[in-house]
């Protein structure tokens, strides 16, 4: 594996499967009475959030604490990035404090890449979402959820998603989740189709390793999993689509549409869901919808990623480290 986790595209098939398998081991910790491993004791991890995301921050924090790391939460929201000094200055402050890893969420695409590659710090960098670029742990937890549901918890160990047909629907243009998922799912052997109005697909998408369609209805019967992406209502005012109702009619997932999907197929959403426009309550609350599992799986995935980037080569769970370094 690379030293940092910046983009899902950085992961090889074997890296990704190793993370998914390790996450299965981590998931077992959640079933124990004491949900904690000593693995990262004495290590300091900073959650550096320049952009609000309580869900992602709490998920990382839970993962870090279950691995016994010392956790510092640094919320830089509102600090000016107009001069750009905040990221570098903040990074160097953290470096001076002897931080081992930085989990960074930033509104600007490429900020984690700069943090990892500019010589500002030595710490391991984990991208927790940057601009409209990447959100690799989200893609990993999505793949983890798919593997469990479509192959099985134990049956899935060691396996990728070869031949699975995954459809992502909605605002691909502004979605780091879509970019990360296309990269990772392709690496794992899945066939990906993106469905959106043309205004919400980036120019240049023809080089991505996936299919593109404007028509949801014809795609649904061929899907093993359908992932609905978040669509912000503001996009309507910027003329990406005419009205909320029209969007909903053409690209929303309701009960009728869900019925066109194969019986085994699942419905996913990175959350938080906008009920009504992109997904109806009926679908969101059905047992085919994996939103709640995705949240739980997020902790296991983040434990696996932090363990593999910081913990070294020893097995994480079966032989936990007893001595401190």
């Amino acid at each position, binding site marked *: 594996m690379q030293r940092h986790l910046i983009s899902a595209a950085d992961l090889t098939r074997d890296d990704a499967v190793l993370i998914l398998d390790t996450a299965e081991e981590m998931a077992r910790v959640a079933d124990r009475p004491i949900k904690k491993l000593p693995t990262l004791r004495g290590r300091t991890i900073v959650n550096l959030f320049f952009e609000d995301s309580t869900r992602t921050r709490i998920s990382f924090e839970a993962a870090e604490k279950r691995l016994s790391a010392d956790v510092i939460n640094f919320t830089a929201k509102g600090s000016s*990035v*107009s*001069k*750009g*000094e905040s*990221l*570098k200055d903040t990074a160097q402050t953290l470096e001076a404090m002897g931080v081992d890893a930085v989990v960074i969420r*930033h*509104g*600007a*695409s*490429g*900020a984690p*890449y*700069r943090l990892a*590659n*500019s010589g500002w710090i030595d710490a391991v960098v984990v991208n927790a979402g*940057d*601009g*409209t*670029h*990447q959100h690799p742990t989200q893609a990993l937890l999505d793949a983890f959820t798919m593997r469990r549901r479509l192959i099985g918890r134990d049956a899935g160990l060691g396996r990728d998603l070869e031949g699975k047909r995954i459809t992502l629907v909605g605002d691909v243009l502004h979605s*780091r989740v879509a*970019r990360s998922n296309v990269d990772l799912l392709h690496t794992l052997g899945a066939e990906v189709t993106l469905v959106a109005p043309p205004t919400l697909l*980036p*120019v*240049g*998408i023809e*080089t*991505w390793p996936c299919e593109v369609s404007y028509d949801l209805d014809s795609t649904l019967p061929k899907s093993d999993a359908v992932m609905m992406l978040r669509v912000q209502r503001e996009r309507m005012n910027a003329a990406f689509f005419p009205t909320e109702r029209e969007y909903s009619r053409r690209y929303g997932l309701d009960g009728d549409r869900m019925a066109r999907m194969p019986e085994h197929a699942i419905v996913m959403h990175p959350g938080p869901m906008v009920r009504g426009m992109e997904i109806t309550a009926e679908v969101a609350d059905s047992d085919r919808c994996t939103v709640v599992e995705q949240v739980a799986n997020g902790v296991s995935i983040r434990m696996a990623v932090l363990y593999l980037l910081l913990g070294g080569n020893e097995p994480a769970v079966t032989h936990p480290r007893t001595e401190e370094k």
Partner: protein
Amino acid sequence: MSKILIRGAKVLGGEPQDVLIDGGTIAEVGSGLSGEGAEVVEADGKVLLPGLVDLHTHLREPGREDSETVLTGTRAAASGGYTTVFAMANTFPVADTAGVVEQVWRLGKEHGYCDVQPIGAVTVGLEGRKLAELGAMHESAAGVTVFSDDGKCVHDAVIMRRALEYVKAFGGVVAQHAQEPRLTEGAEMNEGIVSAELGLGGWPAVAEESIIARDVLLADHVGSRVHICHLSTAGSVEIVRWAKSRGIAVTAEVTPHHLLLTDELVRTYNPVYKVNPPLRTERDVMALREALADGTIDIVATDHAPHPHEDKDCEWAAAAMGMVGLETALSVVQETMVDTGLLDWAGVADRMSVKPAQIGRATGHGRPVSAGEPANLTLVDSAYRGLVEPAGFASRSRNTPYEGRELPGRVTHTWLRGKATLVDGKLT
């Protein structure tokens, strides 16, 4: 002023000749000229060109003297072989009055490294609403002939029309930064395959091309001259080619970096590659080289845009746009145009000195290297190859995309009206 004999220089890349300078003027060009009473410079087959003229330089003074000043910028210009630079108007205060342009012009005169010809703003404060006092700037001591809101596009079609019409009265030209503002909201790089992957806001080629198309039609309609700044796409080339074929009075410039670099470099997220217009694709780069070679694009202009370290040592989104260019321009042109066989040295003289001087009405520059002409000259060691070392730049800023890159050619001497400003690669 004393005599200087440049011995054995390939004038415009031709056969070695001797050039005798007497005072501010070229006294004689020939072979076996006597060096008696003259300081002799052994050219050893280096290439002698008319002093370069940059129609597009940002000197930052007044207002951002931490990035560049007229002094440091003109020293950088002399280092790069330039004897005239046109200073863009986007300073603080904006160069939209006779007072500001005279100040910049006078500073250039005082420092003496390079003639500084201020460019006046088209509109007050570059705000695109109200015409600046174009006539007053022209009548000032600075004698402004080029007007531009560079950094911003004169996007209002009526304002652009009026500016084009108005400057006809004194032979001026409007230099347009072609960028349709609505199509480039949130734009951070060229819109295409790379921007889609990186999740950076796209700057579509059509945002440039649509403005160029409109402006050549306006120039045609009112019978005026329009100049297109830093043209960057293959489509823009096609529009300018079409306009010229119709006899429309349009001229265009390309920057050295758009002749060499592509948007693939943005994958590094290194803000040194952040520039406006953005780096485009390989296909665009090749079209620009062809167009410069065949004369569709008239000139090379640097768009020298100095920024202090902290404005680039940050994340991409927060970084300032622009790169320095005066000290590397000739090397990049040699690499992309001369060493590729697209242009000979006479062609370089035309695109980097003769034509820019004509467009900007800089009389006394861009003249032939022959007896009786002003001794504005540049001597280039075209055989040289070396790594670009920004630490040695005369510019106050170091935001070059070429750090550590090997480029050919080196300017060793520059003379401004017979006075050496650069000798053996060192500023005087």
